[in-house]
């Protein structure tokens, strides 16, 4: 018996050794030039915000197709690996970890939800993998205080959006005492801080700050408080479904107050959900496919229609910001990787600062990133829009 046991043990040891040798050989073999360069996306692919994830994938994919058609980056084709965060911060971190550690992605892209992105930021900085935000606008995502900051963004930034919202309310509606109706999560909080600061800079008082939940059927109590406090304009920060609850509640109250909104309504069928009153909501965007298009926008729109036949009208590209931000972010990231000459995180990070000029979809970027500024878009790039029969139209003034 002991002989057999030791024989068994020996076989096992041999097996383990053989396996180890085999795997060492696999890892040690030089990376083939054809091996794809993997980039990861962590975004909401299911749930209420699933439409946003779809838009981001489309924007990234169109850019990847263009890059791969001209030979890819570092001689390798780009491959996108998508993970669903279900709008849940914990799941987002797990997905980011899996993408970095198992899929070995060279960089990560983020989704719509600020709470998810904020949760991924510390992980990205620790593991030294560039994390590119394309939608979530929470200020602390890029301004996170890390000495070596790996987080970049091609999207709106709450503090800048909040300044723009306040400026618009004053210019358009001569607001004296605005009120705030904000979703009760990290995104709402980020904007509460931003709006307060922006109002303080203008020495303006506010009527009140009210919060509401995603699943609130009725926002009348909150709105009534704001009305009683004398609000003359409302600042709204929430995703599409809760935003429409605000509009429906205002309808019921018969309160015809102007609404100046962050870009939440753009994430879905706002005009269907909120009804005819959706037109009174003026919201911020970084990009719109409506109106007169640049040649670049024409090309991208044509590519979108070709690749995704379900896109028939402009109403089918409603989360245009997701598509456009993702498209530009992918090109900027590819430029950085090319400049770095490597998929090494720290090298890519430094290469982002070295990008001098890129003619993008949203604008022509010149030195989009510096060590002090990780946000490629500024307040000058924002425009105000509204919904008309399913389409997002720019407001002329």
């Amino acid at each position, binding site marked *: 018996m002991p002989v057999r046991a030791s024989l068994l043990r020996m076989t096992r040891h041999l097996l383990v050794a053989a396996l180890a040798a085999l795997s060492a050989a696999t890892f040690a073999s030089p990376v083939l030039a054809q091996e794809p360069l993997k980039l990861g996306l962590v975004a909401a692919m*299911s*749930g209420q915000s699933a439409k946003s994830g779809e838009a981001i994938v489309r924007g990234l994919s169109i850019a990847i197709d263009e890059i791969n058609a001209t030979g890819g980056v570092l001689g390798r084709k780009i491959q996108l690996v998508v993970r669903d965060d279900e709008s849940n911060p914990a799941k987002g971190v797990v997905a980011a970890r899996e993408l970095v550690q198992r899929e070995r992605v060279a960089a990560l892209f983020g989704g719509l939800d600020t709470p998810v992105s904020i949760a991924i930021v510390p992980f990205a900085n620790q593991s030294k993998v560039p994390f590119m935000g394309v939608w979530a606008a929470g200020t602390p995502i890029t301004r996170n205080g890390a000495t070596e900051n790996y987080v970049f963004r091609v999207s709106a930034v709450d503090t800048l959006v909040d300044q723009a919202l306040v400026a618009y309310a004053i210019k358009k509606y001569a607001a004296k005492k605005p009120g705030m109706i904000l979703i009760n999560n990290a995104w709402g909080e980020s904007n509460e801080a931003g709006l307060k600061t922006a109002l303080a800079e203008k020495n303006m008082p506010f009527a009140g700050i009210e*919060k509401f*939940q995603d*699943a609130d*059927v009725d926002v009348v*109590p909150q709105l009534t*408080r704001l009305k009683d406090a004398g609000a003359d304009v409302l600042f709204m920060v929430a995703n599409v479904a809760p935003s429409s609850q605000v509009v429906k509640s205002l309808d*019921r109250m*018969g309160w015809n107050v102007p609404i100046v909104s962050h870009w939440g309504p753009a994430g879905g069928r706002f005009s269907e959900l909120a009804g005819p009153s959706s037109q009174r909501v003026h919201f911020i965007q970084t990009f719109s496919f409506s109106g007169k298009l640049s040649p670049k926008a024409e090309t991208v729109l044509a590519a979108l229609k070709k690749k995704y036949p379900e896109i028939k009208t402009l109403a089918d590209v409603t989360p245009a910001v997701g598509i456009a931000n993702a498209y530009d972010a992918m090109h900027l990231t590819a430029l950085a990787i090319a400049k770095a000459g490597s998929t090494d995180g720290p090298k890519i990070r430094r290469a982002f600062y070295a990008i001098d000029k890129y003619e993008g979809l949203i604008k022509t970027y010149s030195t989009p990133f510096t060590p002090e500024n990780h946000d490629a878009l500024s307040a000058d790039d924002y425009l105000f829009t509204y919904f008309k029969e399913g389409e997002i139209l720019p407001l002329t003034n």
Partner: protein
Amino acid sequence: MLLISSIVTGLAVGSMYGLIALGFHVTYAVSNTVNFSQGSSMMLGAVLGYTFAVRLGWPVPAAAAMSLLLCALLGLVVERTLVRPFAERGSNGWLMATVAGGIVLDNIVLFTFGKEPRAFPSFLAQKPIELFGTGVFPLQLIIPVVGIGITIALQMAFQRTRLGKALLAVVQNKDAARLMGINVRLAIASSFALSTALAGLAGMLIAPLFSVHSDMGTLFGIKAFAVAILGGISSAWGVMLAGLLYGLIEALVTAFAGSTYTQIIAFTIVILALAAMPNGLLGRAAAKKV
């Protein structure tokens, strides 16, 4: 005005909680088990109602009847596949199985119905009417009436009819009930069908005030369970009363203390109420006979 509008709001939302919670009550009263995917059943009612009435353009009564029928069918499937196999072996596995079933259903709907929230228009929720100086949709007044009507009907059915008494006999002693000629399995299965149909009805009623999407039921399901426990899950009246109270508390706290405190205060009150009345508002302590 703030008071009146919050009372109307609170009663309408509260009776939704009550209706879904009645579903918990019905199955608990008959079999001591509950379907934790009630939130998903509510969502299914709204999604089916939307599909038949808006997408396929059926007349609303036909769409509603068909949706309720399919919701009841879902209840039968839930009971047969997620509850009975565990409950008959004396296992509590149905707890997790029904939660899991709800998640599966939510995701099936996500991929078949679509990812975007959709609007379910109703003429009952378009033009607000003036009531004590505040605007309400007629639907907001109809929902509490339906809720209270169903509570009365359930109470009467359980106490006055042969079928109702037979159902209650099942929970007391299954073997004795079977010996008395009661079809125990059928009784339990029909209680599940009734409970999912109630949730489906709640879903269709709330849809025009809200929006239709695959995860619309999640939070409702959780709050409804809190309401069921608060009311004393064994009493239909207790459950409906707790639903109305919970809705009122939510609306009043929001109106007078501010929305930041709504969830904190509302759930603290639930905990305090349960500490003071462990069997819920109108529930009775279950006497365990050994």
